[in-house]
């Protein structure tokens, strides 16, 4: 089907300041895409382990350089953010907590929880940063 792309449009995202829930919503999608890309790195890591001690050590040396450490921690935070907002979606799926004042409260809880989980992982201390 031919789509008419020449229709008039109203200004939307460029002039509309997203509410907190909107920012979280698009961040959920962006982190989802980035985490999917990060899975390639996971396959590299587990394949290096399967390759034996030598390839494992090489992988560790490479990934312990700071640009990769930054990517790693970005992945961990994105994971916890996506997990927390994912749980929020599951709560929504039960049909509850759509009230306006609840939305912002849950948004703050998600953000706090994702930061707290990242800090807990950091303190858990496997990462030696």
């Amino acid at each position, binding site marked *: *089907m031919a*789509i008419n792309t020449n229709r008039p449009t109203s200004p939307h995202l460029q002039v509309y300041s997203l509410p907190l829930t909107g920012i979280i919503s698009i961040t959920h*999608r962006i982190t*989802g*895409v980035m*985490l*999917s890309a990060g*899975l*390639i790195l*996971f*396959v590299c*890591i*587990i*394949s290096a*382990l*399967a390759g*034996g*001690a030598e390839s*494992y*050590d090489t*992988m*560790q040396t490479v*990934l*312990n350089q700071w640009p990769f450490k930054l990517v*790693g921690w970005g992945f*961990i935070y994105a*994971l916890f953010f996506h*997990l927390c907002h*994912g*749980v929020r*979606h*599951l709560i929504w*799926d039960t049909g509850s907590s759509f009230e306006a004042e609840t939305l912002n409260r849950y948004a703050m809880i998600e953000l706090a929880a994702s930061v707290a989980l990242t800090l807990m*992982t950091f303190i*858990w201390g*496997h*990462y*030696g940063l």
Partner: protein
Amino acid sequence: MDYRTPLSRAKGLGSAKSGTGHWWMQRVTSVAMVPLSFWLIKFLGLSLTAPYQQTVDWLTSPINTICVIAWIIAVFYHAALGLQVVIEDYVAAEGPKIISIWAVNLAFLFLAMAALLAVFRIVSIG
């Protein structure tokens, strides 16, 4: 009896496929990954800091092998389902949409197989 609308017949893309199956599997995999994320974090932590044998020993313990394999199956399925929605939202043209969705599906199937193969290799060496 043909219940399809004239528009759906003209587009010739078949039925709506699996109906709510896509939405539902997105939820099932997400619930599964809430606890399974622990095994990913633990695995990443070991892989970046622990000596080779320690990581192998951890991964070859049966409960860890099972949970890592379960996570792998869930995560690649979940990622392919999620990226499909993103593509459907932003790619308007029907041809490129179908091609990119299947390219993503096949790429994640390939990655999942590579990850599973790696686990089996580690378990058989370990």
